[in-house]
């Protein structure tokens, strides 16, 4: 029996689809609302500039830093730290995580240690990293690495554990060797999960950026917001936060596209 649902009904039914245009409109409305509240608070004089700068003040800060060339320099510095730290971490964590989820020996050897380190606060290691590797870019990369690597390892091990054993068994009965099963069955089967893990941990890498640049940095978005704090340039702090958010959104988009293209079979 076909019952035509009203739009309101669709919106209130759990897990029911809504038209794409409506979804887009609602998303846009959220942003408009945030900016509206922000404008009312600042232009309406409810909050002082020193606590909450107005949208136009942040925009002005953007153009100011853009014109003197420092903004692109700081964005580049931060991007380098996050991307290098994230890539090194992923290159090691993906294969190692797959092995950890596949071989009980590797799991027994690594899991207790990894689960211990995973809960250590990254911030408390910053002084140690400075002591061990100095105050160059390596130290900042190390913070990103430390913040993402152990999380990636555990999540990718879970992904690999989730691959159904009968999939491997089927490949054996077709003549696959253990190596074949690992390369041609386990790895492709785990790929969607791996990409999802990378996407989530990329977001975490961005959140560690400020921690990495709080101490001993001389460039980067975390650094300018730190420096701005000392001069009470709240508009610059907001600018730095907004740019980190936008860069995060952008990298997220990249991973979404990769997932759609690379593992279309899973969608």
């Amino acid at each position: 029996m076909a019952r035509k649902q009203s739009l309101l009904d669709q919106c209130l039914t759990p897990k029911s689809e809504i038209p794409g245009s409506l979804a887009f409109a609602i998303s846009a409305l959220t942003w408009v609302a945030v900016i509206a509240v922000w404008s009312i608070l600042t232009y309406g004089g409810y909050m002082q500039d020193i606590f909450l700068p107005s949208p136009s003040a942040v925009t002005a800060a953007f153009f100011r830093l853009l014109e003197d060339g420092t903004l692109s320099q700081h964005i580049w510095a931060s991007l380098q730290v996050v991307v290098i730290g994230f890539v090194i971490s992923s290159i090691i964590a993906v294969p190692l995580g797959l092995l950890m989820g596949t071989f009980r020996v590797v799991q027994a050897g690594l899991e207790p240690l990894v689960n211990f380190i995973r809960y250590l606060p990254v911030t408390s290691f910053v002084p140690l990293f400075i002591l061990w590797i100095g105050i160059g870019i390596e130290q900042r990369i190390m913070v990103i690495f430390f913040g993402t690597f152990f999380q990636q390892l555990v999540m990718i091990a879970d992904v690999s554990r989730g691959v159904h054993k009968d999939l491997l068994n089927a490949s054996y009965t077709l003549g696959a060797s253990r190596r074949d099963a690992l390369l041609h069955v386990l790895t492709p089967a785990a790929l969607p999960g791996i990409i999802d893990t990378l996407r989530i941990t990329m977001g975490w890498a961005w959140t560690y950026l400020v921690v990495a640049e709080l101490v001993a940095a001389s460039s980067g978005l975390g650094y300018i917001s730190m420096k701005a704090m000392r001069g009470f340039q709240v508009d610059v702090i907001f600018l730095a936060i907004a740019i980190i958010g936008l860069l995060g959104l952008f990298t997220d988009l990249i991973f979404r596209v990769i997932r759609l293209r690379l593992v279309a079979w899973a969608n």
Partner: protein
Amino acid sequence: MSVVNAAATDAGTRSRLRIKDVRLEYQTRTGKNVVAIDRISIDVPDNEFAVIVGPSGCGKSSLLYLVAGLADPTEGDILLGNTVVQGPGADRGMVFQSYTLFPWLTVRENVEFGLKRRNVPAKEREDIVNRYLNETGLAAFHDAYPKQLSGGMMQRVAIARALANDPKILLMDEPFGALDSQTRNTMQKLLLRVWEQHQKTVLFVTHDIDEAILLGDRIYVMTARPGRLKEEIVVPIPRPRSMDMVMDPEFIAVKRRILELLKNEIKDDEH
């Protein structure tokens, strides 16, 4: 009980499947020892369609996994020809109950998987794959991904994938168990047609008695856990078989016999 026959040195029995005094014991997580299979001996004649039926949990699927080499028997041996089965291999193809197609490969690539592992040249590969796609009615779907297929279609691909490898024996673990009854009938017909063409030794596990009689030359009835061989029944129904035969007196007689055996099994189990 069947007796392991001594004429195993015949040239014609080079790929004969013999299960000799196999026992399978395993430990549960709570540390309890469970005997899944207790001393089973089966000698499957070459090129026969052999079916194992038994109450659920009787170890019939475990027996199939042992023949596939995906698990090791606690005692006893499984021989294919004159070699003892040690680990899985391409000579024993298997169709699983769960859907085990590789979701990242198209239908064609799935069927091609075993051939690729065995380094069959591309041209030959294509010919073989096309042949089996045609035989199983999949030609139109060769570019589809498993996710786009229905359950019955997926099991067709699984059958084509196993056969394309030209195994000495085909193992089937309740392959149609998850399908609706109409699709199951279609698949049984398809399997009969394909098998009557290739005449390969098949070891087929099911709990569906009609399916067992319709498909099998020989039916091994197992007891409840621990699984033992209760009786070996030769199905006296001529081939080619068809769905209409389920009403034939021979069919009903075999069915009554199996039901009787299994009914006793459930009684035995109660005390």
